[in-house]
């Protein structure tokens, strides 16, 4: 029971952090529950498909299929997160103003919800495919799923869901006037971390070989594989032994998103007088 509990918890926990943030980011948008749920369901289905084809996937592109697939979907998630932030920088204020005049907000909000639903789907798909592969392997090894494995998986899932809930509840206690700043910072860091992770996969696939030396090693302080290390890895992209290219990608993603947010923000002249 314990191994399946731990594995399932670890993977669900990582996806749960991301879903919790997305729920908090969209807390003012009506109808977001459906979008997030849709993202989770699509992610679970996608995870099963990916798990089913893992063997075939890794044989593609001269054995680098898995890496390219991971880098590709991570890159896509980075684009979605960045786009969401830039979009919010432009429309966030209008949305906040029209929030109570329902109808309108649903229309303006749904575009950026779609981007975040895709992010949820990708997070669930990546972590979920590992859960499916692992549990399937355990089931196959024991000649059929047994009760203790299923129980372990279920407990892991519930614990992971609690992390998601706590992340969400923790974030929404932040006063509304700071919430926007906090969540856009979180989304930007999430995007930068994912960009660095995509770079790691491209380096692993030998597609990207420049600046691939390790810059520092903080594994003595906080290991990637510890629970805190994993949480920070998901949230801000913590890596105990980053390569130079990962750091460049991280910094570049931060810079591009921040610059675009500033460029697309409502110009001061058009802004309503300070509220």
């Amino acid at each position, binding site marked *: 029971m314990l191994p399946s509990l731990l594995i399932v918890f670890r993977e669900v926990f990582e996806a749960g952090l991301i879903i919790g943030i997305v729920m908090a980011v969209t807390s003012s948008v009506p109808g977001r529950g459906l979008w997030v749920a849709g993202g989770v369901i699509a992610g679970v289905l996608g995870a099963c498909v990916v798990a089913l084809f893992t063997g075939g996937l890794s044989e593609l592109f001269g054995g680098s299929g*898995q890496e390219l697939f991971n880098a590709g979907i991570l890159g896509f998630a980075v684009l979605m997160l960045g786009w969401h932030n830039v979009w919010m920088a432009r429309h966030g204020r209008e949305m906040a103003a029209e929030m109570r005049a329902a109808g309108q907000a649903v229309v303006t909000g749904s575009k950026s919800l779609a981007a975040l639903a895709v992010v949820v789907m990708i997070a669930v798909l990546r972590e979920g495919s590992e859960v499916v592969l692992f549990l399937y392997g355990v089931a196959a090894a024991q000649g059929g799923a047994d009760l203790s494995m299923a129980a372990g998986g279920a407990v892991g899932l519930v614990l992971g869901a609690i992390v998601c809930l706590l992340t969400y509840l923790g974030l929404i206690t932040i006063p509304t006037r700071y919430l926007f700043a906090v969540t856009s910072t979180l989304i930007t860091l999430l995007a930068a971390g994912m960009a660095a992770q995509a770079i790691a996969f491209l380096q*692993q696939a030998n597609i990207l070989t420049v600046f*691939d030396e390790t810059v520092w090693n903080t594994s003595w302080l906080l290991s990637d594989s510890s629970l805190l290390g994993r949480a920070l890895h998901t949230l801000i992209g913590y890596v105990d*032994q980053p390569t130079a290219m990962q750091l460049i990608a991280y910094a570049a993603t931060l810079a591009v998103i921040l610059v675009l947010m500033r*460029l697309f923000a409502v110009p001061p002249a058009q802004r309503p007088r300070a509220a």
Partner: protein
Amino acid sequence: MIKRTVMRSGRSLLAATMLASAAILAAAPACADDAVTLSLEIKDHRFDPAELHAPPGKPITLRVKNASSIAAEIESSDMHFEKVIAAGAEATIRVRPLQPGRYNFFDDFHHETQGVLVVP
């Protein structure tokens, strides 16, 4: 008017970023042919062999066969890789040239499965 200029500079910035990343990708040299190939198996939650040796400064190709009936995720922070290998499947992992040292790797699904690559 102002809005349009802002939009355009935003777009050209995006284009510049894409060009820059394309240039970096294109600059990546083709993989070297003098790679050292090492083979190992995963079975009964052990790497076989659990200790590998490779010369310094040469690219390394790891051929990993998962001979157990359960999926494994071979991972190493020291060598920067992580790869899921389905039960019975085989995977190729390319490791860039290493400095002398000891490089740990493990199965992220079963942490008791530990191995080390020694570069003298």
